[in-house]
């Protein structure tokens, strides 16, 4: 990066909004993924859309790449500066600009924390439905870029289903708006394209979100099983019976013991798996649905099915689920959380196969995941200092993802492709698919100046995928 770009950025934003010293930049060279550190050359903190536009124009002038970043909680390296350059951190664009309770809409800046939207409207009986585990810290801009999910997306859908309109800055600095308060666009559904495009087409600077009315009744059940097979068969049957829980999460025995030791959520340590099932809606509906879920679980030999007695108990169960990944940090220096998706009816065989892969490679692979929508999160724990263990972890992970795709599933359900899975994209997409996606990419980001090196494979062919996968998982070993 040239000194003159730094001078221009300082002059545009003021020195308080520009970081360029090595020790300052270190905070921004990681995200929540296991990617190798990628340090940006400069980090800037705009306060307005116009500033974002001018930063992007400056970067274009100096032919320097630009990467957007929210809270850096992403799990696929989407917010890492793979090619260095200017990182735009949206932390100071964190205002809720408008709340329209009657129409159940809020207009927010991208740096607003996910849970803060709910906090701002919950007194009116509303909330923002997408609830990634990191919702206390992740930002709505990052959620839009990654099309983030969460446990309750089973009933309510992922981020894209809750976005009505966007304001964006294109790589040439042009500011555009799309969508409408009600979500209807006049023309092609550009919002549908930009949400989940992982910051590779534009930077989002303002979001109109849809707010959801809080349900009248919530029933949270904990079903305890002595066999993982029985738990997964229960999930498949809950879906098949036409019951749509708001959330249906599974923790296997290995994982729940670790979580229980840390969180004390009340998961029985001697069980093989638990299901956390939440039913929401009218009182008249949740009662009968809960009975049906209990019936399914008992049919599949649940040892016990208990309902949370009160809000405190419900929160404790969810704390166990949402803090699980933190708990795993007690077992190994790092872990690799996969995000494959499978058809829900294939859950029993997929879990069995994952265990077989674990045995083959000598790993205990934990599973804590969104069972209701088939979004698996197998967790491979490893010590990055042990090169052999790391190699095996990568090989095991590759096999699991490949198996998910073979079952008719997908590489990623909510974490995004980023620079973590881009080389695996060839498992799902043909040359023709890539050609079209590249043309769409080129249509908006012709110089690849925005978030370069993401989503698209940089190599082709399985052999190269393996080599690249090793590199991309390389961390700092």
């Amino acid at each position: 990066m040239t000194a003159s770009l730094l001078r221009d950025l300082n002059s545009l934003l003021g020195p308080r909004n520009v970081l360029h010293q090595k020790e300052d930049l270190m905070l921004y060279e990681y995200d929540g993924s296991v990617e190798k550190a990628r340090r940006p050359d400069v980090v800037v903190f705009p306060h307005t859309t116009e500033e974002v536009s001018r930063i992007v124009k400056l970067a274009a002038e100096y032919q320097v790449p630009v990467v957007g970043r929210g809270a850096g909680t992403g799990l696929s390296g989407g917010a890492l500066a793979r090619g260095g350059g200017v990182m735009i951190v949206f932390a100071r664009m964190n205002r809720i600009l408008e709340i329209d309770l009657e129409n159940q809409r809020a207009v927010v800046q991208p740096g607003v924390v996910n849970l803060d939207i709910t906090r701002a409207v919950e007194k009116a009986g509303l909330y923002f439905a997408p609830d990634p585990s990191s919702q206390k810290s992740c930002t709505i801009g990052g959620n839009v870029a990654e099309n983030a999910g969460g446990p309750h997306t089973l009933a309510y859908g992922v981020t894209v289903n809750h976005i009505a309109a966007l304001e964006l800055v294109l790589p040439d600095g042009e500011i555009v708006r799309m969508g409408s308060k009600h979500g209807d666009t006049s023309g092609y559904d550009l919002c549908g394209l930009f949400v989940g495009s992982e910051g590779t087409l534009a930077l989002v600077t303002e979001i109109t979100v849809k707010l959801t009315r809080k349900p009248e009744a919530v029933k949270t059940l904990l079903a305890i099983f002595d066999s993982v097979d029985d738990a997964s068969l229960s999930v498949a049957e809950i879906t098949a019976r036409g019951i749509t829980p708001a959330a249906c999460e599974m923790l296997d025995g290995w994982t729940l013991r670790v979580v229980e030791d840390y969180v004390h959520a009340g998961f029985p340590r001697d069980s093989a798996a638990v299901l956390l099932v939440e039913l929401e809606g009218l009182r008249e509906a949740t009662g009968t649905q809960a009975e049906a879920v209990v019936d399914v679980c008992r049919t599949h030999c649940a040892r016990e099915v208990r309902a949370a007695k009160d809000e405190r108990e419900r929160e404790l169960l969810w704390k166990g689920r949402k803090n699980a990944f933190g708990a795993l940090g007690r077992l190994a220096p790092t872990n690799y959380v996969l995000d494959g998706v499978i058809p829900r009816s294939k859950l029993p065989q997929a879990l069995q196969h994952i265990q077989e892969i674990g045995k083959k490679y000598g790993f205990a692979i934990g599973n804590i995941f969104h069972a209701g929508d088939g979004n698996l999160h197998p967790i491979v724990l490893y010590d990055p200092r042990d090169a052999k263990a790391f190699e095996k972890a990568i090989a095991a992970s590759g096999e699991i993802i490949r198996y998910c795709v073979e079952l008719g599933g997908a590489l990623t359900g909510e974490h995004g492709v980023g620079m973590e899975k881009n080389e695996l994209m060839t498992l799902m997409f043909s040359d023709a698919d890539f050609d079209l996606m590249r043309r769409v990419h080129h249509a908006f980001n012709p110089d690849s100046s925005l978030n370069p090196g993401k989503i698209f494979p940089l190599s082709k062919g399985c052999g190269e995928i393996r080599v690249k996968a090793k590199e991309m998982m390389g961390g700092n070993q």
Partner: protein
Amino acid sequence: MLTANLATKLQSLLGATRVTAAEHSLLSFAVDGMSPAAIIHPASAEEVAEVVRFAASEKLAIVSCGSRSKLEMGMPPARYDIALDMTGVCHIAHYDAGDLTLSVDAGMPLRHLEQALAEKQQFLPLAVPCFETSTVGGAVASGIDSVLRQQYGTARDFLIGAEFVDGTGKICKSGGRVVKNVTGYDLHKLLIGSLGTLCVITRLNFRTFPLAQVSGGQLVSFASVEGTLAFRRELEAAGLPISNLEVLSPGIATILAAILRSAKSGVPLGLEQGRWCVYASYEGNAAVVERVSRELEKFARETNAANYEPLDKPTDESLGGMLREAFEWLRFASPLVLLVRLVLPEFSGEVSAGLSDILKANSLRGGMLLRARGIVYFLAQVEEGAALDRLEKTAKDVTRLVAEKQGHTTLLHAPLALKSRASIRAGADENIGLMRRVKQAFDPQGLFAPGRFWGGL
């Protein structure tokens, strides 16, 4: 001559049975008076790709269609050489009822699909007009509203993947067959409402939904628009599971009452009296349906409804079905009709009065049908005479009013002479430059339905 030559070439490409060039057949594939030179009846995505590659090499324009029930949506094509009749690509490719996912060819009729899903106690909430004949591909490409969008949203909310042929003649896919998937760009969302201008849709993947055990329906009528909107506000704020929520102005209520009468169906009193009416249907288990009925009655009392009418099952089914078909009977309500879809941040008594004033000022009859939140179908009708100028002025006045309210409009139906003069879309959200980039990426040579979309696309 083009017809004969083209047909011969296409026959040698796909075989004689796949090509039609008879004059009367060509006329039945006309779009706004323009006929193709040949009709192709492909039986697979591979055949579609072959036709597209041929069209690309010969620089021919393709309009793909299903049952052709909504071909009048959009502008007349700038060029039209080949009609691609997709009704032969019509199988269920994959249906995993236990997983609530479906992969279905674009030419599958919605009615057949409904029957197949009903066998497994499931359905697809794509309840669109011309349901008896519409194909699933046509329903998505038209982007026409489903009557169930209040509860189930738009196709964007349950379309999970697609296979299609792009402008280079390659079979591409986007999304997948799982309900949660963020792998790659969601290109399939761009196909919704694209009027066949981006690609030829060959297959669509959906999330399906369980059929409810019981359903109910009510018609509540009011003396004024204010009472109507107050009732609707109460209803929405209560968070009740309403699958279909429609508001009919007196003009629309009167038309619908006449249709129901002529079909010898029951006519609820609110429609008969030509009042402002709210139709609500809901579903769930018996206890839920009973609870919603009770609450509706309470809200009706609190907002001083003129009539509160629980509907018996036949009347409810008949009325619900008619409302699903609203686009169809609205556009044929009179010999000359202007039908415009408005998207408004808010529909208020003031907006209603403004729209009524426009009708009065232009000496036209008509009315408004509000669907879900923010969507309004505005009808202006003329029985006879030289009324084009008045319809055109009405279209302009409505567009202006909606633009002032930060909304946008889409012209759904108008006499052809007016359609070619008026802008089919107008309002706050245009982004035509961005759309042009999307079109160029999908269809670099401009083969697909050129000019049909808007702004020359």
